[in-house]
């Protein structure tokens, strides 16, 4: 089974596995006279993050906050407008670094739609052997690897290897997608809403399996989801996004136990209560997230924030380290001018 273990660690345990700095992606929107409008969707704006070896970084946020764009940037499915990436000490797509192809071998991704991500005309075995063969693995070894992979994700190779995607249930197909992501012995797996389409009883099976695989194979995960409970269950650190920006970043205990940003607090208290005697009485914030085409000036959350003041309109709050976590809110910046901020 060691054919599935990731390749050797290079920079040592203290060096971040992935370091992204100043990533930015704006999508131009066609429209206006002759389609020449200058409007852009500011999907991801100057976002920096690091992923430590062996950790699970959870990414949460509502639709349109840019969390999936981040995933796509990290694996270079789309090219960032700006920003750099370093994978275990090697700059990506730069003269002395590693190529995008090499990045995509070490970083793999699992998508939400289990059916759309599989080629319907290939059997499961063909799908799983495809990438290893393309990377030069002899056919016999590729077959052995397919068996190992199916074993790993709890599908009996004798029973499933020759089936087609439509012959599997949603949960089984997602297991195949996870197996495929592991086929090239990656170090980092990005799970973009990977369990969101599954029924609860099946979701629990897949979550248990993800936990096991991480330990057995020494993997690192970036787990993107809108489901705060699942992110809490799986993650070591959590990153909260709002309209293309990081609003808060910290350990799972800090984010869930002592959230500092008003948006994080609203998001957490918007969860249904699970206790009929303590039902939610009032919605934590009103309105919908604004359109990312024209995000509000200054702090992007200010239009829905109960504490917004003049400074929030004028100045964009920096992501400030406050010890336990980092938070982008003027109330937490000393001398920012916000009435709730400490004065220097």
């Amino acid at each position, binding site marked *: 089974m060691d054919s599935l273990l990731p390749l050797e660690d290079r920079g040592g345990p203290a060096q971040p596995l992935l370091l992204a700095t100043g990533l930015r992606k704006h999508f131009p929107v066609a429209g206006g006279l002759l389609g020449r409008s200058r409007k852009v969707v500011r999907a991801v704006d100057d976002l920096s993050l690091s992923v430590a070896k062996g950790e699970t970084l959870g990414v949460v946020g509502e639709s349109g906050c840019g969390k999936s764009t981040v995933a796509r940037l990290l694996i270079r499915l789309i090219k960032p407008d700006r920003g750099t990436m370093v994978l275990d000490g090697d700059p990506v797509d730069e003269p002395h670094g590693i190529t995008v192809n090499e990045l995509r071998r070490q970083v793999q991704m699992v998508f939400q739609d289990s059916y759309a991500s599989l080629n319907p005309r290939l059997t499961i075995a063909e799908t799983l052997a495809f990438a290893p063969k393309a990377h030069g693995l002899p056919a016999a070894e590729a077959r052995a690897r397919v068996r190992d992979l199916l074993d790993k994700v709890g599908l009996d190779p004798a029973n499933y290897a020759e089936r087609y995607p439509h012959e599997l249930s949603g949960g089984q197909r997602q297991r195949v997608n996870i197996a495929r992501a592991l086929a090239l012995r990656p170090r980092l797996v990005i799970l973009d809403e990977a369990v969101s389409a599954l*029924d609860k*009883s099946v979701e629990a099976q897949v979550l248990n399996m993800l936990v096991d695989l991480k330990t057995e194979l020494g993997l690192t995960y970036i787990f993107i989801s809108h*489901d705060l409970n699942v992110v809490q269950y799986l993650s070591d650190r959590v990153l909260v996004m709002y309209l293309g920006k990081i609003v808060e970043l910290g350990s799972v205990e800090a984010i869930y136990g002592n959230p500092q940003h008003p948006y994080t607090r609203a998001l957490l208290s*918007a969860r249904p209560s699970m*206790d009929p005697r303590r*039902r*939610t009485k009032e919605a934590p914030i009103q309105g919908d997230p604004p359109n990312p085409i024209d995000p509000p000036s200054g702090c992007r959350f200010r239009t829905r924030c109960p504490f917004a003041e003049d400074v929030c309109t004028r100045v964009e709050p920096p992501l400030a380290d406050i010890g336990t976590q980092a938070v982008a809110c003027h109330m937490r910046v000393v001398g920012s001018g916000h009435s709730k901020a400490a004065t220097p």
Partner: protein
Amino acid sequence: MSELLQVRDLHVKFVTPDRTVNAVNGVSFDVKRGETLGILGESGSGKSVTLRSILRLHPEHRTRWGGSIKLEGDEVLTMGKSALSDLRGQRVAMIFQEPATAFDPVFTIGHQIAETVRRHTGKGEADSWSRARELLEMVRIPSPAQRLKAYPHEMSGGMRQRAMIALALSCNPALLLADEPTTALDATVQIQVLLLIRELQREFNVGVIFVTHDIGVAVEVSDRIGVMYAGKIVELAPVEQMVDAPRHPYSRGLLASTVHDGMRGQRLEAIPGAPPDLAEVPTGCSFAPRCKFVQPNCIVRPPDLREMGGSHLVRCVLADVQEAGVAA
């Protein structure tokens, strides 16, 4: 409270030349005015099929119905065309998961609400527009007068869902059917819409059937919860009892496998396997192949729905045994 809706032994079967799907296999429940019944189930459990049957929204030529659905005493399954047309929208209204596709994209929101009001109440043009405006105010859409002139695509998802609720309540229905109405919404918007539904339900004293796959959402809105599996209600209980003491192994599994606060680091109690194929009529308990308490007689014949006291109904041969176990 009087019985508003009575569903008895409902069977729904879809027949095509290639295959037959036994989507609903004997479902019975009542809904009173002013009450919310949550129907909780996973995909393919028959929860939406049950809901749509109440309006007979399935294609007539390939749907076979059995049993009875009575709204205020009128049998829906044998209702004639004009009675059915009065039923839909006027006596029973429905809101859907995706409000973007439920509205007609080429007419303004105001036009669509006013049209419905005119069609069902016979009000004049001006009256129906002012009613539409009132309705938008009621669902707390900001600047309603301007929003009347908006097309569906000009509104956000949460706003569209509010507009659909306004449309649904435009004719004072007795029963509101909600099919996963908050599933496509963001978390901070979902809770706003849930609270709105709860509040309007009290204000209008309307009966609500709320179908969802999300336990948290069901707990947030329901007075009673019915859990569906493979086309049957396996457990039906007041919400407190369902959360505190679920009896059916499937309901218990569902609650245990749902991730919530404080489960970090623990192994999740997953239910093994997957739901059954609905091509065959089940001979025994449909959950038996996945059940850890399965016994020989589970496979022989389907268990009956047993009354456990406190209007708690369970469809499991073990229900009595467990009770004995709890008592001892």
